[in-house]
């Protein structure tokens, strides 16, 4: 399971399907695609694993099934590497 890092405010701006996010815990700024932002918003609402996110976000992504779960798994590890989310 993954959750948004406690205290992360998700200060961000989005233009044309891409976003910049100010990580107010680290002071870094990240360039994200819109899908990553959707995942962060979803985890802010409720902790989840890749399979649960695939169901919750199915209508927002073109891919589905195992491919989507695998892609979300990679994305979750990448977001954890930026200290935006953590396992719980």
């Amino acid at each position, binding site marked *: 399971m993954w959750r948004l890092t406690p205290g992360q405010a998700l*200060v961000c*701006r*989005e233009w044309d399907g*891409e976003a*910049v996010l100010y990580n107010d815990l680290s002071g870094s700024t990240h360039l994200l695609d819109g899908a990553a932002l959707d995942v962060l918003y979803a985890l802010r609402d409720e902790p989840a694993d890749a399979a649960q996110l695939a169901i919750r976000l199915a209508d927002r992504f073109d891919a589905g099934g195992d491919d989507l779960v695998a892609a979300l798994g990679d994305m979750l590890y990448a977001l954890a590497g930026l200290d935006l989310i953590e396992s719980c």
Partner: protein
Amino acid sequence: MLTVGTLTSAELRARLAGDGLVLRTGPFTNLIRSDVPHLIDTVALMYADYPVEPGGGFADFHLDYRRSRGLRRWFRSQVHFAYDGSTPFQPLPLAQAYPMLEWTMNWCVTHRAHGYLIIHAAVLEKHGRGIILPAPPGSGKSTLTAALLGHGWRLLSDEMTLVRPDDGMLVPVPRPVSLKNASIDVIRGFRPDAVLSRPVEETTKGTIAHVKAPRDSILRAGEPVPPACVVFPRYEAGAGLALTPLPKARAFMELADNCFNYQVLGARGFAALGQLIDTSDAYTFRYSSLPDAMDLFERLALGTA
């Protein structure tokens, strides 16, 4: 209004040798002292149109440029810089006193003026539209800037774009435009009207000369401008003209990388940059011909590019 140009040579020397010349550059006051004769002559030429403030009041930056003493005064003489009584930099050969003045005046702003988001970028205005030119050294940014100043553009800055966080306006701090190496002769050829300082050789950046800022730009230094475009220029010999839209989120990241104090301002810097990107079109721009570039920038100024 008292300007450097209205002072006699003797008055200017007396101020610089005494309590200091209080020079206004945009929102800043610089209290300058010096005993270097050719530096004083160059200040008289390049800053003739700048306002001089009364002495004895507050000054943002206290800058002191002194010639070596002792044996060094006569053998390989150097210029020593002091800021508010401290010496943050090594001395330079005496011939480099004027480039040192320009570099250290920039340094004061980029290291102290954190009331602004400061982008390492030239910024110009025409028809009320502010155009920001961020670029690394060697991209042709200053050459392009110096050329545009001969085509009705107003100089806000050649080096530092000051963004006012409260309202996103671009605040002018017009100062001489720094040219390097081959660019010096390029601008001499393209703008025979331009006033240039004497080239100084063998600096860490090669041969340096500065172009005097247009008088109108200095007189209008109190007029901020809203941003309209961010253009990342790149000079490429023989290349055709190419203006390519840059996605806004990527432009944001590029601009953040070009800021002097984005990290210092934290969330405030993020908000200011986001507001700037909101109101600006962003492009990459490749050029080799200055006349072609002038035409394209006219269209940018009119909002028809």
